[in-house]
């Protein structure tokens, strides 16, 4: 287990968290190489199927990031994100995958927070171990 490197997928909204990730880059804030970003216009574009497919594909952890409540470029998109993520987490609870999904608000000015969010999440998933669906996939 010691050499387990988790695969992390991070959804970023175009306006806040993607810019926050950019700021982390511009500021040369170093963090683990485990995460890959998918950019969407708003965090509310992230569908349950995106998360379930990612888990089915063996992704070990999924981060959904967006603007802070009140700062959404689309007024209340992130409020819908918040509601939807709660429901998805409930569903994942039944599958024993609850801790593999995490929602975090990161503003365009929070490069440091983006760095810390990724770093902490990688550590959390590392401690959790590989996604159990990963092995199923390999056996196929």
């Amino acid at each position, binding site marked *: 287990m010691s050499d387990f490197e988790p695969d992390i997928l991070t959804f970023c909204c175009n306006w806040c968290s993607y810019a926050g990730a950019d700021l982390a880059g*511009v500021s040369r804030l170093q963090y683990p190489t485990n995460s890959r970003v998918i950019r*969407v216009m708003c965090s509310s574009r992230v569908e349950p199927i995106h998360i379930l497919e990612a888990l089915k*594909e063996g992704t070990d952890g999924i981060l959904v990031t967006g603007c802070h409540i009140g700062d959404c470029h689309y007024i209340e998109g992130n409020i819908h994100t918040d509601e939807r993520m709660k429901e998805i987490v409930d569903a994942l609870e039944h599958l024993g995958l609850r801790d593999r999904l995490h929602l975090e608000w990161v503003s365009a000015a929070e490069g440091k927070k983006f760095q810390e969010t990724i770093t902490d999440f990688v550590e959390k998933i590392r401690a959790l171990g590989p996604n159990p669906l990963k092995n199923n996939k390999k056996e196929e």
Partner: protein
Amino acid sequence: MTKQEAITNEEAEELRIGAFICECGVNIAGAVDCNAVADYISTLPNVTTAVVNKYTCSDAGQEEIKKAIKDLDLNRVLVASCTPKTHEPIFRACVEEAGLNPYLFEFVNIREHCSWIHMWEKEDATKKAKELVRMGVARAALLEPLQSSEVPVTNKALVIGAGVTGMQAAMDIGDMGFQVYLVEAGPSIGGKMAQLDKTFPTNDCSICILGPKMVEVNRNPNIEIMSYSEVEEVDGYVGNFDVKVKHKARYVDINLCSGCNSCVEKCPVEVPYWEFNEGIGTRKAVYVPFPQAVPLRALIDKSICIDCGACSKACERGAINMDQEDTFSELEVGVIVVCVGYDVYDPEPNHDFGFGLYDNVITTMEFERLINASGPTMGKVVRPSDVVQPKRIGFVQCVGSRDVNSNIYCSSFCCMASLKNAQLIKEKYPDTEVYIMYMDMRTPFRMYEEFYNRARDMDIHFIRGRPAEVTENEDKNIIARIEDTLTNKIENLELDMMVLSVGAVSPESTEKIRQILKVSRAADGFMMEAHPKLKPVDTTLDGIFIGGMTQGPKDIPYSISQGSACAARATRFLAQGKALTEGITIAVDEDICVGCGVCVPMCPFQALKMDDDGKLEIIKALCKGCGTCAVACPSGALQQSHYKNNQILAQVKEVFAYEEV
């Protein structure tokens, strides 16, 4: 590679993807082996060519893309380089010039999201870059051409905030021939500059140079000043903003009032004048903001008015109207310029350097009002405890600035402000002992260092250090215990009055307008520009600009420059009369849609509605392309263009499918 084979394209045309991997000098190549990335990418299905550029965004790089599109008949282009936030428009325009639809371009960020954050992990960074580009290739294969639409631009501007920055922006837009609504929350235009006594580095009288400018703004036929008014709502998009403005009740008809002050003389209610005089001196319940106010009209503070009617009787013009209510205007504008300014840091809550505990510790702004010839003391500098002229005055720098306990940023103008005030004291009362207690004196820009030298020649004492302890003696004098870090000498400096050189903070009152407009806020609390170097007055929102202190601490010349910059940037849209809106919107597949209407309340922009036949109607001009409704759609009939399910899922499936080849 069964997975990649699975991603087949439904279109009949053969996919020909060109991938351009940018080294960005050593910015990317320093951590990512770009040649290895290109070699790997060229093995992927549908990739016609994969090349490495030194700088893909350079002229030569862009020419190479255009040439490849023509020579190799490419129908998709992928660039792996920096962030789409700055460079996507450049490459979209580039492929469009070569005849490709700009939405058939895919951007992969391997700099901010890879090389710069994994600077010492070359192997892992290269592997990650390969995966990111492979995700991009999978997505590029599924991209569809889109059309951005051209929308007409209402040729009027809204400027929010009429301090010196907003005034400059309004005048420049007005002078270019476009109508401007200048909305100011206070009862007069002029802003903070109207409160200052003199301005550095020339010691011009502030109101003497600002006053004529205020009159000029008022006279400009293209500017409509809306004082004592606030923006309540903003809807729409670049070129077509609908704005609701509240005009707060003044209880005085500004069309009848002449600003003669007869009502003020008769009013029996008197309170400290905080809004303009920092609580030094008083105003009445009915008052004219200040002698040079524009508009020069009275207003009534209803919260303290006792309804005695004395003002009504005194007013010959019958301008007093106690039944007045707030009114509202609906404006249509094409662009919005935000110049809402700053507040000075408030040292009261933390009692910085004894402020709020000891009478004779005051702020710079209080000092400005004291030394101002038209201020509450008619320019006589006196200390608060006994109204006696102080013989020993000390200025403490960086209060609320460059301090981990308050704000870490430098407020930039306070060194010069204290140098100016120290000089004014020496000129007015040459016998006064003046001390400036500082960490570093910061005097960039023309004539500023010379101004500092001038102060040094005027027998002003500079102590490099700030008081460690401040107490008060029985004479109400201030005892500042301070170490001069240049001489390592510690002394107890006795002062008659101490002035805190307070910095700038973003006002809480501007948070509402920031949220209405959805402008981002930076870590220091001020509003955030689109790019710190290349787009200093733009926001990430088309048609909305920020200038002056709204974006962070600045002095007057810098603020005025930004006001002009906002005007120039904003007027581009007004002069062209048209703007391009994003092609990314929502689309409905009518064959699948069952007309359940679940999506309709999801849209905060009212872009979705059910028509009379129970069919979903999409108003494209209102859709901003967030995709919120697409997720709500239970049948999958709604798809957000450019972020369709298959496009996102292609990335999801490719993300960790890396296999060494």
